[in-house]
């Protein structure tokens, strides 16, 4: 599809004998919220790191924002924002210092830099906390600050690796409201999660286990696929379990 912002084909990553990502293919269209759903160790973060150009793939092709990441990772980087799973801002710096630093790292200068820092402080309600040390912020604020830092340069694509783990349900809903607003503005969002109910926020998603994609499609379609006589109205969790069990069944039979 011409409108695809991300195209992944036969992506594989091995660490020695261990296959972390095994022949994964998918495409993501502009403005889509695309989910990678799976348990810890399913290969989501490794896929993400390859998409962000942090890890070279063993084989397969990757195109992000029109750039082949093997050759033009630097050009692609100006178009992507990345929020790591672990809080990865400078804990010993203040909120304002972190915003300023990351905006400069994304090559913002002068009036534009000041405008973006001001935007982040207003948009994410960080103004009152601007002089607080990042390490001492409540978790919800840390997460907002991390998102703000990833958005300083107005990226076309946003990668969110387990963005809401450890955050309370209210803050999580608030977070998704922001993500939806971004997607409506045309930002493509890739998100990994192991919260089944969060999968419902995605336009499309893939279910991953042991490095491979087991199911792909819209949340509703994936749920419908798990419908049985005993489970006429399966939840995403039911669907997830059904998909995993179906994948394991042939292996057990053999």
């Amino acid at each position, binding site marked *: 599809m011409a409108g695809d912002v991300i195209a992944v084909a036969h992506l594989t990553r091995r*660490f020695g004998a261990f296959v972390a990502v095994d022949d994964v293919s998918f495409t993501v269209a502009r403005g889509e919220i695309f989910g990678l759903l799976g348990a810890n160790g399913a290969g989501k973060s490794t896929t993400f*790191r390859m998409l*962000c*150009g*942090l*890890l*070279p793939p063993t084989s397969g092709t990757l195109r992000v924002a029109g750039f082949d990441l093997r050759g033009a*990772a*630097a050009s692609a*980087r*100006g178009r*992507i*924002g*990345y929020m*790591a799973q*672990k*809080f*990865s*801002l*400078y*804990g*010993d*710096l203040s909120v304002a*210092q972190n915003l*300023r*630093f*990351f905006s*400069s*790292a*994304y*090559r913002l*200068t002068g009036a534009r830099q000041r405008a973006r820092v001001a935007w982040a402080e207003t948009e994410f309600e960080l103004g009152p906390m601007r002089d607080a*040390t990042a390490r001492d912020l409540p978790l919800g604020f840390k997460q907002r600050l991390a998102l703000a*830092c990833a958005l300083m*340069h107005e990226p076309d694509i946003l990668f969110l690796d387990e963005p809401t783990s450890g955050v309370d349900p209210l803050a999580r809903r608030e977070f998704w409201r922001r993500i939806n607003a971004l997607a409506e503005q045309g930002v493509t969002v890739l998100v990994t999660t192991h919260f089944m109910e969060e999968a419902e926020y995605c336009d499309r998603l893939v279910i991953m286990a042991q490095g491979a994609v087991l199911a792909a499609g819209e949340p509703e379609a994936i749920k419908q696929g798990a419908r049985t006589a005993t489970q006429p109205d399966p939840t995403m969790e039911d669907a997830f379990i059904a998909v995993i069990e179906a994948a394991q069944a042939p292996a057990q039979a053999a």
Partner: protein
Amino acid sequence: MNAGALRRLFGLLRKESLQIWRDPSALAIAFVLPAVLLLIFGYGVSLDARNVPIALVVQQPSALAASFTSQFARSPFFRPRRFLTIQDAEQAMTAQQVQGIVWLPSDFTRRAEAGGNSPIGVIVNGVDANDARIIEGYVQQVWAAWLTARAQAAGGRAPLPLSVQPQVRFNPAVDSRDYLVPGLIAVIMTLTGALLTALVIAREWERGTMEALMVTRVTMREILLAKLIPYFVLGMGGMAASVAIAVFLFGVPLEGSVWVLTAASGLFMLTALGMGLVISSVARNQFVAGQIAIITTFLPAFLLSGFVFDINSMPRVVQIITHIVAARYFVAILQSVFLAGNVWSVILPNALALAVMAAIFLGLARAITHKRLD
């Protein structure tokens, strides 16, 4: 480097300075660590024998024996203790209460006055071979001084046909501390420099901030420069503090120029920081990085730099190995600048070697550090 890159570098430098200010562990490595090590080693390591406890056994007291033993009491090197029998003295040496025994046998006075050859016994504890040799030398000095004094008192000429007049150059006080402290600074700065860069980058890996940096448009060259510049400044500050301790606290003379010292220190600091950068690209947590820094920089510098163990008396193979120890060149420069002055024939070749070492380590760091997580 264009204007944008320069501004980005300033952003990184600003962040690094803020971090140093907010988390003073780097300040501790740059200033507290060298000061503490310098004080410990400076006060603890001394190759001089002073106030060495020594046993004097005089089996038959006489005026002659008394004048001889009083020579020991006057010597700054010895703290004599008297024993009546050689057995008691040997027991004291076994118990490490004395380091050596000077024994005047019962026929000492009789044979000396008869004008004959009058032997005295000297027994030295050889467990520490270095100390033993020093004590032996001091006993001979005291003996010779006594003979000369006696001969002069008798109005005659010295009974020795020739006399040795030792003349020591470049360290006239023969104070081993003057000699050790400059070398010690080189050894300590190796550790400080390597730790500064190795630990701060390992810390960025540990906290995940390196990952966050890597997805931005900052280049690896900018990241490395942003580490090198502030920690170079800190390391040179630590160096200045160490020199101040050496000169003002230990009273080590500084014969050469401060500018030569600064330039050589700059070259050496770049080498040490470069080693730290190389370590950090291998070790991604602070504990491992610290261990590697101590094993690969501090130990070789301590053993193979020639700061206390003379390189020329090492086996040939080991001598060749010392050429890859950067501290070796810095020790030579520091000992020259502190004790002898600007001896260009020593300073220039060693400075050149340091410049080569700095280029190798910084180049290696640049080559092996990639914007990748694997």
